[in-house]
Each structure stands twice: as structure tokens, then as C-alpha cells.
């Protein structure tokens, strides 16, 4: 498939069907639109002024403020704990679901897919208040354990996406070969299936972690006073006012997301 022929000559003039007028400026405008709020947050995190929108002078004092704030540290710790547990549990359950669903009968599969698809389709607020109702009904105290359960549940569909995609592309030959050579199910799973799925499991785990760390609505309803996560804490800070401290936390989080992404990209490239 070569794309060398990019234009057609007709009616005397050269027409390039790959460059429509207006597409390029629209694209640049959209990129500018996507990044200007983030850029603004980063720049103003270095503003010494207490009033967000007035530039005074360059300062890193808000970063010191963040590092000294024990509430932020506690919230970050909660977020990381919930995120890590939810990532491990949801990815494990997603692998089990992906493998088990392959041979499941139609009816069971439909029920499973409805449950897996629900968090993607139904508004998070509905699941959040429903989970609140569930925890109160069965007596689960609002706090970290409840958060881990809730986060695990809505992370499963996201962890499952890359795993299912990879599973559907797998070449069956190694499985047949292993089976012909006498390997049992368990050996095939451990020596062939899981290694072949590893990059997808990694991608799924990363996705689950990002979704959990980013979650606001469910955490807001289910966390209770003791298990405030970082987004819930930030929301409390910015609901009414603009504080430069939040710009500093946001910049740190942007840095974190960026480095995780670049790191995972490098790991995946190395594997190839």
C-alpha cells in the first residue's frame, strides 16, 4: 500500500484530495484549545500572587505550600492506596473474565457483558449513589475498603478493553502446538496465554490506574470523611475560589501523568 500518488490532475489544475482548505487551521486551533487551559494552570502555578488571575512575579512558594500540607499528603496516600488495590484487583478480574468469556454460552455471556458494559454507559452519578445505598444497606462503613470495592468495579471494563482486543488477535498456532506436545490447560495458561497477553494486561492495568486516580464522583459519595482522595480534596479547595496552591498540585499531577505515559511508551517500545 503506497501513498505516493497524492493528487489528481484534472481539468487543467492539480487538486490534492488530502489537503482540504481549513482542515489545518482547525487542527491547530483544536490543539491550542486542548492545551491552553493546561498551560495556563502550569504557568500560574509559578505566580507569587494569591489572587489567581493577576501575575505578580515568579515563585515556587505554592509548591512548598503543597509539600507542607499534610491534608494533601493524606489525600494522595488514600488515592494511591485505593488506586493500587483497585488496579491489581480489577486487572486480575478482567483477565479472568476475558479468558472465561471466550467459551461461555450465549445467555451467560450476555449477562456478563451487560454488567461489564454498565459502568461505561450508565452515568457515574447513578452508580455512585447506588453504591452508597448498597454500602449503607449491607453495613459497609464508608471509607477506604468501600472505595476499593467501588473502584475495582468500574475499573474492570477499562482494564478489559485492551485485554479482549489482544485476545481476539492472538494466533492460535502456539496453543495448538503446546496442546499437541502434551501441555495441560494450566501450563498453556501460564507459559503461553499470559505471556502473550502481558502487554495488553499492562495497558489495561495502566488504564485502570488512571481511571481510579482520576475518579471524583464515586469517591465523593462513598469515601466518607476519613478516606478523602486527592480529587475530592481538590474539589473542596476549588469549589468556590481559585487558589494558586491547586495550580501547583495540578502541575505535579500533570507531570506524573506525563511521565507514566512516557514511561509506559518506552517500556512497550523496548519489548518490541
Amino acid at each position, binding site marked *: 500500500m503506497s501513498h505516493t500518488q497524492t493528487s489528481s490532475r484534472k481539468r487543467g489544475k492539480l487538486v490534492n484530495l488530502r489537503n482540504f482548505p481549513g482542515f489545518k487551521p482547525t487542527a491547530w486551533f483544536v490543539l491550542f484549545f486542548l492545551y491552553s487551559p493546561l498551560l*495556563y494552570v502550569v504557568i500560574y502555578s509559578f505566580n507569587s500572587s494569591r489572587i489567581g488571575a493577576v501575575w505578580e512575579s515568579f515563585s515556587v512558594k505554592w509548591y512548598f505550600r503543597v509539600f507542607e500540607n499534610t491534608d494533601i499528603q493524606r489525600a494522595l496516600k488514600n488515592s494511591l492506596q485505593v488506586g493500587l488495590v483497585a488496579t491489581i484487583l480489577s486487572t486480575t478480574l478482567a483477565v479472568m473474565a476475558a479468558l472465561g468469556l471466550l467459551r461461555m454460552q450465549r445467555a451467560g455471556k450476555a449477562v456478563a457483558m451487560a454488567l461489564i458494559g454498565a459502568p461505561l454507559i450508565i452515568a457515574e452519578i*447513578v452508580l455512585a449513589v447506588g453504591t452508597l445505598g448498597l454500602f449503607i444497606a449491607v453495613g459497609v462503613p464508608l471509607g477506604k475498603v468501600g472505595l476499593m470495592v467501588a473502584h475495582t468495579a468500574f475499573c474492570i471494563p477499562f482494564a478489559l478493553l485492551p485485554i479482549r482486543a489482544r485476545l481476539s488477535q492472538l494466533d*492460535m498456532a502456539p496453543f495448538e502446538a503446546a496442546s499437541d506436545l502434551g501441555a495441560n490447560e494450566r501450563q498453556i495458561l501460564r507459559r503461553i496465554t499470559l505471556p502473550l497477553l502481558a502487554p495488553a494486561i499492562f495497558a489495561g492495568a495502566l488504564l485502570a490506574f488512571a481511571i481510579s486516580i482520576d475518579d471524583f*464522583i464515586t469517591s465523593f459519595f462513598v469515601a466518607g470523611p476519613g478516606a478523602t482522595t486527592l480529587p475530592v480534596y481538590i*474539589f473542596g479547595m476549588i469549589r468556590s475560589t481559585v487558589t494558586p496552591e491547586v495550580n501547583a498540585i495540578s502541575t505535579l499531577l500533570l507531570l506524573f501523568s506525563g511521565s507514566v505515559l512516557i514511561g509506559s511508551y518506552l517500556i512497550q517500545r523496548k519489548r518490541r
Partner: protein
Amino acid sequence: MTAVTTPPKKQAQRGRPGQSSPKLAYLPIIFLAFAIGVPLLIIVVYSFLEKPSQGTGVKWVFTLENYKALFIQEKLDGTTALDTRYIKVLWTSFYYSLLTTVVTLALSIPVAMWIATRDARKRNLLVALVTLPFWISILIRTYGMRQIVADEGPIGKFLGIFNIEWSILYSPPATILGLIYVFLPFMILPIYASAERFDFRLAEAAYDLGAKRMTVVRRVILPSIRPGVISGIALVFIPALGSFLQSDMLGGGKTNMVANVIANNFGQARNWPFGSALAVLLIVLTLLFVLIMQGAAQRRGDKVELV
């Protein structure tokens, strides 16, 4: 001329080496039934129960009042009248989501097409740039947007030079702008995925055979990216309909969408049964939309995965 991607052939259902027993899926299904299924069931049940005279929660008495209260107001003197408050909230949510979908679609088609026609190196970089916001907290992105559109933010300052007044924060336009901002990547990416697979030699062939430029776009290019467009519409409209943060942080509580009213009823207003009825209505509307989209996709013969 329809783009049909046929689903891969069904694999043999059983006995394939390497395919684990379906029992492996039992644990995740049981867990999801508990953590997703039961909460949804609880919402449905609560919507038919009474509100306790004091405190939060529900009183176990069956009633249809919550659904009635969505549309009918009971006055103090016992007479009833049509209550348009919640119909307005639903309409607002629908209208904002629709506007968000239309604007993101109009922006995304040119952007996705442009990215898809760059060379591989540039294309990868551009896709990464569009994907990156997805990994950044929606809370932070909405907060950044709030500072951009604030009266004394960069836009306000710039327009101030020309003595043009700028004041949209805490009003509907700010909410809609926030929704467009947050959901734009969800529209660009699926359309890009379709556009990338499109073989532009087809467009050139159509052109060489005498089709006008706009005809090529309408009859060749657009049908080819339709699966991406349909996925994009679903990926933007559905979460926008249930969005909470944008109307809370940018609309300033004045432009309530459904999610804000549900949250309020489970929070300060302490009316769980009524909040549940509203939640059930939101679920029904969402599922209705999913059915319409799937119908549209199937009629065209496209295979569009919404889940």
C-alpha cells in the same frame, strides 16, 4: 456505498486448546453483580419507596409519588399543577449534550482527517497529543477551563483591551464550553481510527472518474468514516448527558443538569427516593439513546461497538 467491517468469524465454542474454562469468569461476574448490578437494583427499588420523615435513606412503603413529583407539583392547598422544573432540567441536559456533540463533531472531522493524512511520524505525535488529555484528571481540566473563561482570565483581559465585556463564567455558555473541552478527544479519536484506515486512493479514483470535490467528500469519504462518527457521538453524548463537574464548576449551580440534581437529592436535599426516580429516568434516557445509535449503526450495516 457503505462501509462494512464484517465481524471476525466465530471461533469454535469449545474444546480449543488454550481456551480456559468458562468457570474462570464466574468470580468477576459475581463480583460485578454485587458491585454494579445490586447498586442499580437498589436505585430502582428506592425510586418506589417513601422518604423518611427525618434523616436520609428510605422508608419501606411503596409509592409512585416520586415519579409523579417529577412532573406534578402538589400545592399547599391540595391542588396540583404541572411542575416544569425537572422537565427543564432534563431538557437542559439533553440540549447541552446535543450541542456538545454537534460542536465536537464539527471540529473533529476536519481534525481527524487532517491527522490521518499526515505522514506516519507526525501522525503518531498528533495522536499522542490528542490522547494525552484523556490521561489528565477531568477535574483539573475543568478547573483550567474555569480560569481561562473567568472574567479576569486571559480571554477577558484580551477583550478588555477593546473594551468588550466578557462575562460567561457561571452561566450556560461556560458549562457548554467546558463540556466541549472535556469531551472533544472522545470524538476525535474514534473518527481518526476510521479515517486512518481509509484508503485515499479511493477518493482519488472517484475524483478521476469525474466526481466533484464535494461529491467525493459526501459519497466516498464521509461514508467511510461513519463507524467512527457513530462511536464518537455515543462516546460524547452519553457521558455529557450524565456529566456533573462542568455544570457544577462552570455553571455555578445555576445551570443544573440531571446529575447535579441527583447529587443534590442524595446530599443536602436528603431525598433519596426522589433522587432515585430521577436516576432511573436518566438510565432510561441513556438506554434509549444507546438503542437508537445501535439501530442506526445496524441499519447501515456498520459494525459499531458501543461497549
